[in-house]
């Protein structure tokens, strides 16, 4: 790392400012700038959209490689079904939908993921 100590603290200050501005932008704007009506309703899905945008690309990250390495439909299907990341996420999804408990879903998802990783050696 080539940054001096002073530059590093400047960076930390700038990052804190960036965080403060991003998280407060609409909280300090005049009320007429604040979203209302249909837009405000639609914004309720923002956390869902953000969390899916962060997680899904990571969940399916290895699939193209696994599919490319598997010749034919049968091998491809097996490669998808045994992908540890995807199988873990699907197990979590199933358990959360059935039990409505995220923690149980995490236990199931992590177990399937680590189990398949161990099997794959």
């Amino acid at each position, binding site marked *: 790392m080539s940054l001096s100590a002073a530059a590093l603290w400047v960076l930390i200050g700038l990052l804190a400012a960036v965080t403060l501005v991003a998280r407060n932008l609409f909280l300090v704007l005049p009320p007429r700038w604040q979203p209302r009506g249909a837009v405000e309703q639609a914004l309720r899905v923002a*956390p869902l959209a953000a969390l899916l945008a962060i997680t899904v690309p990571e969940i399916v990250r290895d699939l193209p490689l696994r599919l490319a390495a598997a010749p034919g439909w049968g091998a491809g299907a097996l490669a998808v079904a045994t992908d540890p990341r995807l199988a873990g996420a699907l197990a979590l999804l199933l358990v959360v939908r059935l039990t409505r408990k995220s923690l149980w879903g995490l236990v199931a998802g992590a177990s399937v993921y680590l189990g398949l990783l161990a099997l794959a050696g």
Partner: protein
Amino acid sequence: MLRTMQPALRRHPVRWRAFRLGARCVVPSLPAMAAWGLVTGVAMVKVGLELLPALGMTFIVYSGTSQLTVLPLLATGTGVLAMAAAAAVANLRFVVYSALLSRHLRRVPLALRLGTGFWTIDGPVAAFMQQQRRGPLVQRVAFLNGANALTAAVWCGSSVAGIALAAVLPLGAELAYIGLLALFGITVPLLAGRPAWAAAAASVAVALAGADWPHRLGTFAAVLAGVAAALWAGRGRGPR
């Protein structure tokens, strides 16, 4: 902050109850926070940050998104302003969160509004929206701050643990993925109703298309696409 808030909260039982409810509701997202905090702490030390700057990043910046964006750039000798700009782009989804929260925090004094906005991150926002779907929520600021306080404690605690244990802990792709699974776990209960499913489909499609875009621009584009899809799917319906 929590120590100064607590006596005031205790004098106001309804507010105190909302604060504790917020803390309870955010519990499912805590494994994700713990895993990501640990991974971020280890990553900061591995990239060459010394103890004080690493603690500064944890407690002053308080943004895993910013930290994980600039850490690879620190290693490559990128300029300070370029790193701040990259973090600003990566943080754009929080601008959308601030728009979402603006109505709820409108009448709150400025200092409390800024403080609450600063430490409100994904888990507490998700818990807040989920609780709102269950019915009218009283003392919304106290609820948010209850969720924020516990989230911040877990994030900072695990990040410090990562900094302290970096020498003995491997970076751990497995741990990072389990943290991601935990985030996915708090996402699943939010999938209810036509606008939510439309938002999910649009967000996933754009996120996959933009997975390789720089500075997490794909994430921001996916959030915008999700909100636009929810707007489209909810047209003609009154407020619920």
